[in-house]
């Protein structure tokens, strides 16, 4: 038997992805990209302002198979849901719905989830539904680091104890990662951390240090 790297559900979504395209004059839109793997996802949504539900959603993907399959399933899951419900759709939900994704692909597929959330945030910002800017704290940083995947485990670097230390002083965030600098994933993780932390409004520089 031919052995493919993904299960049949994933392959089916990869071959025939649902909700592909771009909504004209969307109510919310986002493009999420990961410099670590180079993938990119765009999400556009149409919102029913009375019911606060996602009426229509479409995505585009410049990415690998798990990225495309997650985009397909996540848009299926979000369609018809209220914004608050849709915001809670997680990578885990997507992965479960797809019958499991390879852990090493988590960081490619999580992009679609981030795309969905960013599109909703975009809608909320445009419609004045967002709270004021808050100063960045270590807690904010840790929350963001929980979106940086440890490709070895398919879980984030916080939960897999890769983050040895975090500091924030004078606009400079320093993250110490418990990994050898020459480790095969060191560069990918470093890029991913910078990508997640840098957009914070009061962060000027992100430094990543390796212990090894």
């Amino acid at each position, binding site marked *: 038997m031919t052995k493919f790297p993904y299960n049949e559900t994933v392959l089916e979504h990869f071959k025939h*992805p649902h909700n592909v395209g771009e909504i004209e004059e969307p109510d919310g839109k986002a493009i999420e990209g990961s410099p670590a*793997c*180079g993938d990119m996802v765009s999400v556009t949504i149409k919102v029913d302002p009375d019911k606060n539900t996602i009426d229509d959603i479409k995505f585009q993907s410049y990415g690998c198979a798990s990225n495309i399959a997650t985009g397909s399933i996540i848009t299926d899951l979000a369609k018809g849901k209220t914004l608050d419900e849709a915001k809670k759709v997680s990578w885990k939900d997507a992965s479960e719905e797809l019958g499991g994704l390879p852990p090493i692909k988590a960081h490619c597929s999580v992009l679609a989830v981030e795309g969905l959330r960013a599109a909703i945030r975009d809608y909320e910002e445009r419609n004045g539904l967002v709270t004021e800017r808050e100063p960045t704290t270590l807690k904010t940083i840790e929350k963001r680091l929980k979106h940086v995947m440890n490709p070895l485990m398919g879980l984030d670097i916080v939960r897999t104890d890769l983050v040895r230390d975090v500091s924030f002083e004078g606009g400079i965030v320093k993250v110490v990662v418990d990994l050898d600098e020459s480790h095969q994933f060191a560069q990918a993780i470093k890029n991913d951390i910078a990508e997640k932390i840098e957009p914070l409004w009061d962060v000027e520089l992100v430094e990543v240090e390796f212990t090894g």
Partner: protein
Amino acid sequence: MSRRPLERRARRDDSDRRLEATAGSAETPAAREEADVFGETTYLDNSATTRLDERVLEAMQPYFFETYAVATSEFGYSLGIEAREALDAARGTLAERLGAAPEELVFTSGSTESSNLALKGVALALGEKKGRHLVTTRIEDFPVLNTARALERQGFEVTWLDVDGDGLVDPDDVAAALRKDTILVSVQHANQEIGTVQDIDAIAKVAYDGHVLLHTDATHTFTRLPIDVSGSGAAASAGAGVGEVGETSPESGADLGIGRRDGAPGPDLVTISAHTIHGPRGVGALYVRDKTPIRKWMDGGFQEYDLRAGVEDIPAAVGFAAAAGLVTPQENEQLRALRDRLLDRALGEVPHTTLNGHRTRRTPQNANVTFHFVEGESITLQLDMRGFAVSTGSACFSKSLEASHVISGIGGDHERAHGSVRFSFSRFNSMEDVDDVIEAAAEVVAQLRAISPLAPRD
């Protein structure tokens, strides 16, 4: 239109027949019918490794079951003496193909070990005496790349040479990088991903004039392009699979070889391997020019002129020699034809496609292009589902999740690496395979572009 693998069987039968004629295997038409039902993959990843040729297996067989003793000294028992003779014969065949003396060829477990031995062996021999500086390129394959990095961590200094947009090293850059304490220059003969062939003769002259040793990784060129380390130019014109076929034409590969001119200095160390030429995996060799200062780094017995400890793998050595003997000038011409057809069609028929590597200074078996606005793993998976095995420089495909260092080395951005696809050919591929894969690729790329946010909308 979509083609399923089982619709593309005819040319497969051709290669089967060719094998039957030589190896005498008796595959019945019924057995072939059965294989049809399951479909077969058209394997186009021959730079990664190749399918073993049945004739190689046949040559190896007696050394597993009959002459299976270790190679003993000349005063050993008869089975061991026979084994030694077989090992010597294999060594002689391979050495001749390089224009080397048999004593200059050390069998190893493959390119990785050969290049480790070359770099670490010279570092051990000269690190204290002469210096701790090496020169290499940014686009080497992992055996050289990571050995150089490992030496860096041990306090050696490495100058990493840049290459141009085609992947070529400027010999003047090599000259400029040489210092009093430089102990080794290591520049690959041809690149593993983009197939670009370096001017090793020019680099050898620079190294020779600077009194520095030169190593070259010829994993992807041995028997495919002429290599003669002797300085007489003899092996280069006769034995290396180019023969009389258009010897002076640029397409013949003669001008891409090593040791093209009489009396020219050659490399001192050359890495070669069996896995790229339908030989067994796990065997390679390192050519070590007589009197080259080098020390073994894996301790053990005194085998292989005291440079590589361990019981010799005689069946593998015999298989390597047999595999080298099977590569003909005609085969290399055929590979060039397949390569050129693929490049012509890919660049001519698929919009937004870029060539990776040099158009003519490239190995006969390698074609590499970037299909822009789409990601490589998506392409390879789609092609896999249609029965084609190819590889990509995309980060998503790699074990390290890092994009190809070769594509970034030639100045390509992430996007160029992301959509790069390598097609590499072998003895068992036909022109029909090329046409089939390029038609499938054109279709797959169009489908993926339809969902890509980057692709221009027509």
